[in-house]
């Protein structure tokens, strides 16, 4: 295939193909560097001065579960009950539920302000109550 491409003379091609000597021990020096790289990677993958992340993670998870379980029986130093994480979550849920079920408060002044903006007549108090009822039904 190369013969069909007479771009270079045989002499130049032979010189290009000639082996290149990088000096005695060039291959041994490559292996030396590879061994050094291998030793470095072994050191780098070994955890030093701390527990393995998986062990640390397991310990943290266990302590978290223990805190939640034992939290209900824990007492504050003042003698009163200290709220636990479960208490706090329950409190947030009950507050959110109250807000959802509470009837919306319709402020007449706001209606008037909106009417001014839209140039529509402001609703009478009766209409306002009807509107509030409609909102409640929604």
């Amino acid at each position, binding site marked *: *295939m*190369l013969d069909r*491409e007479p*771009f*270079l*003379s045989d002499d*130049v*091609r032979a*010189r*290009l*193909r*000639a*082996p*290149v*000597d*990088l*000096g005695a021990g*060039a*291959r041994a*020096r*490559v*292996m030396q*560097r*590879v*061994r050094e*790289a*291998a030793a470095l*990677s072994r050191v780098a993958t070994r955890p030093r001065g701390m527990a393995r992340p998986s062990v640390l993670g397991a310990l943290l998870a266990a302590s978290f579960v223990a805190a939640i379980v034992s939290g209900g029986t824990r007492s504050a130093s003042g003698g009163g009950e200290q709220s636990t994480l479960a208490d706090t979550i329950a409190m947030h849920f009950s507050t959110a539920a109250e807000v959802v079920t509470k009837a919306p408060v319709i402020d007449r002044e706001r209606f008037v302000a909106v009417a001014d903006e839209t140039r529509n007549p402001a609703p009478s108090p009766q209409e306002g109550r009807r509107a509030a009822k409609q909102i409640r039904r929604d």
Partner: protein
Amino acid sequence: MNEPSDSAVVQRVIAGDLEAFALLVDRHHARMARYAFHLLGSDAEAEEAVQDSFVRAYRSLSTYAERDQFGAWIMRILVNRCRTRLVRDKRREETAAAWLREADQTFEPSDELANRDELSNALAQLPNEQREAVVLRYADELGYDEISSITGAKISALKMRVKRGCERLRAILEASRAGS
């Protein structure tokens, strides 16, 4: 006894037999040294590029998927290594030339460049892409599909690079002989 394939040797190295890597070094060092020398033009630069490529290959061995084509894979690493070096060297030369221009001095190539033999000198005058293609084609005697997989260039572009590179190389060598 049959020699183990590159892929079998790679498996041994991954399994922890570091010294088996020496087999891969023995098999591929010569062609890598020749390529790096023709591209970079100096023994020292070539040796460093070849060493870096083997170390890089060793580090990436566990993630290397084409285990039956280790030769092409490590040549790709070397080609990229040489490209990086050539870009870096060009920047250095440009910086040095700019400094010398500011100091009203002319830029002269280093002794290393001046002492290159005729062929190395001629190769050094080719654009990097042409030099890469000519060396892989004529020093390594690779087919265009192999060169394409190593360099990432299209076959049509490679054929053009080889043709133009060879024309230029011939002209430089003829001019050099006529001048001497």
